[in-house]
Every structure is written in structure tokens, then in C-alpha cells.
């Protein structure tokens, strides 16, 4: 522990090329004992490649690696482990049928005088390790009887026992509940106290902010920068990850709003929302902001005919759409991309092709028989246009990433050539790169003469993308703000209905 201040692992100018792709290009990285170092970047940024090089799974093409200032060469995972480098992967790899204690002592069981295994010793020493890390698990429990979170804890404890000095966490929370995640973070805190160097990889930026001391960003195999966590905020990190600043991310080319295409007046469904009235002009992006429970989702659903309403009317191009019938709203060119993608937006077990065509089979089914060739053509065209990453249009939706799923949910309406798109939280559960693509898509839509209602609880997105913003609170519209006049404080005030004169007016 005396040399603790010198405990450091560094890689310098690491490059790695795979056939057809430069996975890492001159990347520098270092982690010190007693530090939690976040490693972030989009998919394909090179995080996994870097980790695999550290762990000896891949060999670097050029560059050098140092531990405590001495150059080291890691040829295979055993080398890495002997130098105190260890990784906790997404799926835990320990012997599931054995007990926690047995897992700790695999290959080095303490034995008694007759060569018998000294079980008492095994479990006592295991309990000591677990206790020392504040983990409340019986060392006699079998691994398969533990929850994924407990299994992760045991893996970490084993690594600590094996005298690791640097521990890599690769998306450790993907399978954990919130409670388990909290426990994991506590444990990581203890590792830090014991002067281990922790490398932490996660898609969830809020986790990075919660537990990391330092963060390094990679993009397209390049080293972008390293900062103490206190010096960056989420926007800064995102802009480093996507390579443009936040303003540019939301910077879409707006079009001059045209005639009124959608006119909602006096829409009411007690007790969820009342007297909701607004107009929507062709080419507009209308932001719809409100906190959870404000009724915004319900209003969108009512406009689309997904749910009934008590009073009021919805007109498209001055013709009234009958309530309660999605088919009617669709006939008038309205499309809804619902909030719950997996439950309401997409048929998860079915193919990309079916999901893209599902709202528009009528056009390609003379006498009810689907023209398979056109079905495929249309889906292939939209997959290309929207840059949906899928091995084929026959791929099952479940296997796509969140961002690509969302693009399919939007493609479904483009396939029908819908004119008015109601997007309800289109970027939840979507990684940053796909978010930007969805923003570009919104831009492309309005350029093509479509009109978009963007319902979102993420303020920068609403302020950045919309021409005009409607704010809802407790089922009522509490304000309308042009985007140039909008700031977060004003919108939040309207959304929480604490602006006294607004309340007074009603």
C-alpha cells in the first residue's frame, strides 16, 4: 500500500486494425489506483477493442502498455490476470453449479492432513472476503441460486481475492435492477478505497456521473479527450461522443409553416385532459412538453383515435375526423409513433419487413393477397433511406437496437406516406447516435412537406427542435412558447403550473 500513489496502468498510442476497419487509432488511456475511470463512446467507438487489448484477447498492432511505469507485454488473458488485470463482463463467467466458496478457491483448495478439502477453512475465508466487501451472501450458496446482481457481486469478490489491481466493468448494470445497481456502486466505492483502479464502461451516462472520477471519450477509434468528471456535463460528453456540439445536434433546417393542417379544439376527456385546443401548420415541428402525468400522451392518443374523448373535435384540412378510430385518422394522413415502443408501436416477434408494411398492406394487397415483391421492395427502400441497421428485412424486431427499432416505428408511417406524424417520446431508450439520426429524420420529414408533433419530456430536445412549444400540466395547456423565446426555466415553470398569473387566468 506504500507504493499506492504510483499504482497506474497506461497505454500509449495504441492502434489496432481489423480487416476493413481501423478499430483503434493512436489511443492513449490511463487509470490510477483509487480512481474510477469512465470509458464512453458510441457503439463502434473502440471501447471493447481497447478492453480486449488490455485483457490480452487481442494484440495491439502498435503502441505500448505500462504498469507502474514499467513496460509490459500482454500476450493472452493469463498474462493479464497475472499482472492484476481483471474484467467483469456482462455475462458472469464462474462455475454456476458450485458454491460461492468453491468458486473462490477453484484450483487452490486448502487441504487437510489426509488430502481432504478443508471446507471449514474454505467457507470461513470466503465469508471473510465477502464481509470485507460488505457483501451479504452466504458462501455456501450455489451460484445459480443467486440473482444476477448477487452473481456479479461474487464475481467481483473473486477478482478481489485473486489480487486484482485493475478491474474493468463492461456494462455491468445491463442485467441488474435499480437496487442491485446501487449495491454494485457501493462495492465499486469499496474497491476504490482499497486502491484498485476501476475502468467503468456504460451506455448510461447518468451512471458515469454517479460513480466516475474521470472520464475518457472515444469516437470512431480515436481518442477524443479525458476530463475530471466535475469539469464536464452531459451535453459536453454527448457532443464529444457524437463529434458535434449540442446546438448543432438539434440544429435542423426548419421550413416556413404553411396552412393549418390539424385543428384541435376543446378536446376533453375527464379527468385526464380538458379543453385542449391548438392548430398545427404544414411543415411545423410542434413541441409538446409536459411532465409525466400531464396528459400529453393521452391527448396525442385521442387525436389519433386510439382512445375516446368526451368533447371537442379534431379536424384535418378542415374535415372532421371521427373519434375512436385509428383507421379514420390514418385515412386522413395522421400517424402515431406511440410512447411504449415495445407494447404499442412494434410487433416485436415479427420481421422488420412486416413492421414497416403493417399499416400499409392495403396498397399492395389487391383482393387481399399481399404482393410479396413490393412488400420487400418497400421495406428495403425504407431501411436504406432511414439507415436502419439490420442484417436483412427478415430480421426479427426484437434483435435490433432501440434506435433502429424506433426508426422502424417511424418507417411504418413513411411507408403509408402519412402527412402528420405524432411522435411520442421518440428518443427514449435510444443511444446518442441514433438520437441524432432521428433528429435528422424529423428534418427530412418537414423538408418533404410533412408536419410533426414532437412530444418529449427531454427539454433540450423540445427547445432545440420545435418551432413552437405547447406546455401541458394537469391535463391543460398552460402555455404556448415560440422556440426562440423558450428556455428550460420558463417551460418547467409552465409545466409545473407554478406561474401564478397563468393559474389565475384559468
Amino acid at each position, binding site marked *: 500500500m506504500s507504493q499506492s500513489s504510483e499504482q497506474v496502468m497506461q497505454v500509449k498510442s495504441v492502434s489496432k486494425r481489423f*480487416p476493413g476497419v481501423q478499430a483503434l487509432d493512436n489511443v492513449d488511456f490511463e487509470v490510477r489506483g483509487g480512481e474510477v475511470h469512465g470509458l464512453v463512446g458510441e457503439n463502434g467507438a473502440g471501447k471493447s477493442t481497447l478492453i480486449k487489448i488490455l485483457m490480452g484477447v487481442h494484440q495491439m498492432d502498435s503502441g505500448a502498455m505500462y504498469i507502474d511505469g514499467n513496460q509490459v507485454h500482454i500476450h493472452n488473458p493469463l498474462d493479464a490476470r497475472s499482472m492484476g488485470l481483471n474484467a467483469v463482463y456482462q455475462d458472469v463467467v464462474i462455475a454456476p453449479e458450485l458454491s460461492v466458496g468453491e468458486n473462490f478457491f477453484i484450483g487452490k483448495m486448502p487441504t487437510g492432513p489426509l488430502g481432504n478439502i478443508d471446507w471449514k477453512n474454505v467457507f470461513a475465508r470466503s465469508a471473510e472476503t465477502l464481509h470485507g466487501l460488505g457483501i451479504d451472501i452466504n458462501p455456501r450458496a450455489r451460484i445459480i441460486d443467486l440473482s444476477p446482481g448477487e452473481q456479479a457481486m461474487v464475481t467481483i469478490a473473486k477478482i478481489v481475492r485473486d489480487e486484482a489491481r485493475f478491474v474493468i466493468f463492461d456494462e455491468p448494470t445491463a442485467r441488474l435492477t435499480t437496487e442491485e445497481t446501487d449495491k454494485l456502486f457501493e462495492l465499486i466505492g469499496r474497491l476504490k478505497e482499497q486502491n484498485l483502479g476501476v475502468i467503468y464502461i456504460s451506455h448510461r451516462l447518468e451512471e458515469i456521473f454517479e460513480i466516475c472520477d474521470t472520464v475518457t471519450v472515444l469516437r470512431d477509434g480515436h481518442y477524443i479527450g479525458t476530463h475530471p468528471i466535475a469539469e464536464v456535463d452531459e451535453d459536453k460528453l454527448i457532443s464529444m461522443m457524437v463529434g458535434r456540439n449540442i446546438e448543432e445536434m438539434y440544429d435542423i433546417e426548419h421550413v416556413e409553416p404553411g396552412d393549418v393542417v390539424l385543428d384541435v379544439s376543446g378536446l376533453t376527456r375527464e379527468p385526464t385532459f380538458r379543453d385542449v385546443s391548438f392548430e398545427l401548420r404544414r411543415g411545423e415541428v410542434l413541441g409538446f412538453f409536459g411532465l409525466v402525468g400531464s396528459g400529453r400522451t393521452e391527448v396525442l392518443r385521442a387525436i389519433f383515435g386510439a382512445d375516446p374523448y368526451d368533447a371537442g373535435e379534431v379536424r384535418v384540412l378542415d374535415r372532421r375526423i371521427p373519434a375512436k378510430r385509428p383507421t379514420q385518422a390514418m385515412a386522413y394522413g395522421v400517424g402515431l409513433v406511440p410512447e411504449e415502443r415495445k407494447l*404499442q408501436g412494434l410487433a416485436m*416477434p415479427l420481421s422488420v419487413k412486416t413492421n414497416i408494411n403493417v399499416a400499409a398492406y392495403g396498397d399492395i*394487397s389487391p383482393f*387481399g393477397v399481399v404482393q410479396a415483391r413490393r412488400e420487400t421492395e418497400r421495406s428495403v427502400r425504407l431501411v436504406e433511406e432511414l439507415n436502419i441497421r439490420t442484417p436483412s428485412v427478415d430480421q426479427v424486431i426484437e434483435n435490433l437496437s432501440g434506435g433502429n427499432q424506433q426508426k422502424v416505428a417511424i418507417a*411504418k408511417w413513411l411507408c403509408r406516406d402519412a402527412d402528420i406524424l405524432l411522435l411520442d417520446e421518440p428518443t427514449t431508450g435510444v443511444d446518442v447516435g441514433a438520437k441524432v439520426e432521428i433528429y435528422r429524420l424529423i428534418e427530412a420529414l418537414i423538408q418533404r412537406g410533412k408536419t410533426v408533433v414532437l412530444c418529449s419530456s427531454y427539454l433540450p430536445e423540445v427547445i432545440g427542435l420545435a418551432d413552437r412549444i405547447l406546455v401541458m400540466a394537469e391535463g391543460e395547456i398552460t402555455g404556448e412558447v415560440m422556440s426562440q423565446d423558450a428556455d428550460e426555466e420558463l417551460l418547467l415553470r409552465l409545466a409545473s403550473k407554478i406561474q401564478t398569473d397563468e393559474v389565475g387566468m384559468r
Partner: protein
Amino acid sequence: MSTSEAAQPTRIDEESPAGGTRAKLLKRFPITTELTLLVINVVIIVAMALLTDTFLSTYNIGNIFRQASVIGIVAISSTLVIISAGIDLSVGSVTGLSAMAVAVLMSEARVNMAMWPAILISMVAATAVGVYHGFIIYEVRLPPFIATLGSMFVLRGIIKLISGAQTIAHLPEKYTDFSRLDLLGVPALVLVWLLTAAIIHYILRYTRFGRNVYVIGSSEEVARLSGIRMRLNIYGIYILAAFLCALAGVLLTARLSSAVPTIGQGYELTAIAAAVIGGASLSGARGSVLGTVLGTLLMSLITNAGIHLEIDPFLMQSITGALLTIAVVIDMMRQR
């Protein structure tokens, strides 16, 4: 130059012994439920041909198919409903209703009606049950399980009422001969089964209605928000399902030359079993007619094999049940 460099290692990678060729083969011939079932069917046939002298005769093979044909049609009906994430427990009773009605109408001792009108009336009556199911499930929002469980008992009662709880026999030969008819060496019953399978396969694969059934099966809300007309499609599914049972009932009485009051009883579970063995998922959106046809055939094969191996029929029933469990477990593991 640089492109060839990039392409070459990739190719080497794919053909590397550790799973590369296997992955390639799997891509070309994916191990589908249908393929697995086909292999199992063939293995049983080959094994039985080697184990016994009696199994591999034209007569016996024809018999296996003939016995599978009626329940095969009922299983297709169940498959349709299961893909839509519904369940139909009344298929045995609907089949029974059609089977008993046609017997009562044709029987000299009872109504003594001509063959075609009798068939028509029986089938319309049984198909009407599908309209009722559409109503009670779509309009009244009763879960399909409960709705069809009720129908199962109601219809069984009606079957006993119209038959006076008696066996109706002595039916016109013109009608019963159909089950012994061969066309090009293939039993007519089997042809009807396979033709029905082909038609429903086509409907599920190539029509808008078929696409809708899968989408509804994956989520009703997704279907509704995609503009699928739920009323039309739910009625459609249950009416088509009932129609298939109606057809099966008419064939069943012809094959048995008589109708007992318990006719078709227990078919619902056999049919669901065949569909599930064939890869249908009770949570919807998965299943195929081909799988169900092979599943039905497998069950018929095993029953027949049991007879030829002189295994106790009671034991055979247990074996069939175990088979169902194993088939589903294997399929689940394969999915993971």
C-alpha cells in the same frame, strides 16, 4: 489491392474450423421447428420399418395418414387461433356438432335428408359458432379461454340433445364411402386435409388477413394502432376456425360411418398439442401450418408405432404426453 487485402482475411475467418462452416450451413439451412420435426418423423418411420415387418405397408402408411387427417384439420383450426394469441377449447365440440348434425339429418330413422343439404346445414350451423365466438370475444371482451370453454360444454349438451344421447348409425353409403375413396392411390380424406393445409398456409403466408393474424398475435394494441380492423379480423379468425372444424366433423362421421354422442371429445387438447409440437406459441405470433401438419403426423405415427410394438395403450397415452412436454422444452431451448 487494398480491397483484396481486406476481403481475404474475412474469408479465412469464416472458414476457420471453429464453427465457421457450421454457422454458414446454419444460415443456408436454418434448423427450424419444421425441419426438426420432419427429421424426427423420418427417423421414426425408418426405425419402425426396421423393427417390425408389419409397419411399412401401403395399407398401414395410408392408415396413419387417414387417421391423422380429421384431427389434422382441427389442429390447423387451432393453429390459426393460437397464432392470433387466442385459444379455442371448443374445437372438439364444434367438430362434434357438425359430425352429429350431419348424421342426424341424413339418418333414415331421423330426418332422412339428402346428402348435400345435410352437409350444408351441418356446416353452416357449426360455422355459426364462430360468429358467436367473434361476438363474445370482440364485442363482449370475454377472454377466448373462457368464451370457448363455455361453448365446449354448451355444444356438447346440444350434441347429446339432438342425438338423444344415442349413437346414430346406418348412414347412406354414398356418404360413408367417401372415406374409403382413393384418388391416384391417395385416400380422399388425406387429400382434403392436405388441400386444406395448403389453402390455410397460403392465407397465413400470402394474404393481408394472414399478416394481420400474426400482428394481432404479437400485440392487439400494436395491431389496432396500425389500423388493422380488429372487428373484421377477430370475427374472421373465429369463423374460419369454426368452418375448419365443421369440415372436419363432416369427414369424421363419414370415416366412422356413425356418430356417437362423445364424437370429437378431447380433440381440443390433441389439436393444441399438435399445433404446439409444430412450433406454435401460446403467447401468439408464432406457428405455421406446415409445423402443425408435421406435428399431427408425429402424434399419429407414435400412436401407430405403439400398436405395432404392442405397447399398452394406456402407457402410450403417457408417452404421447411426455412427448408433448419434451417437444416444447426442446423448442424453447432452441429459441434461446
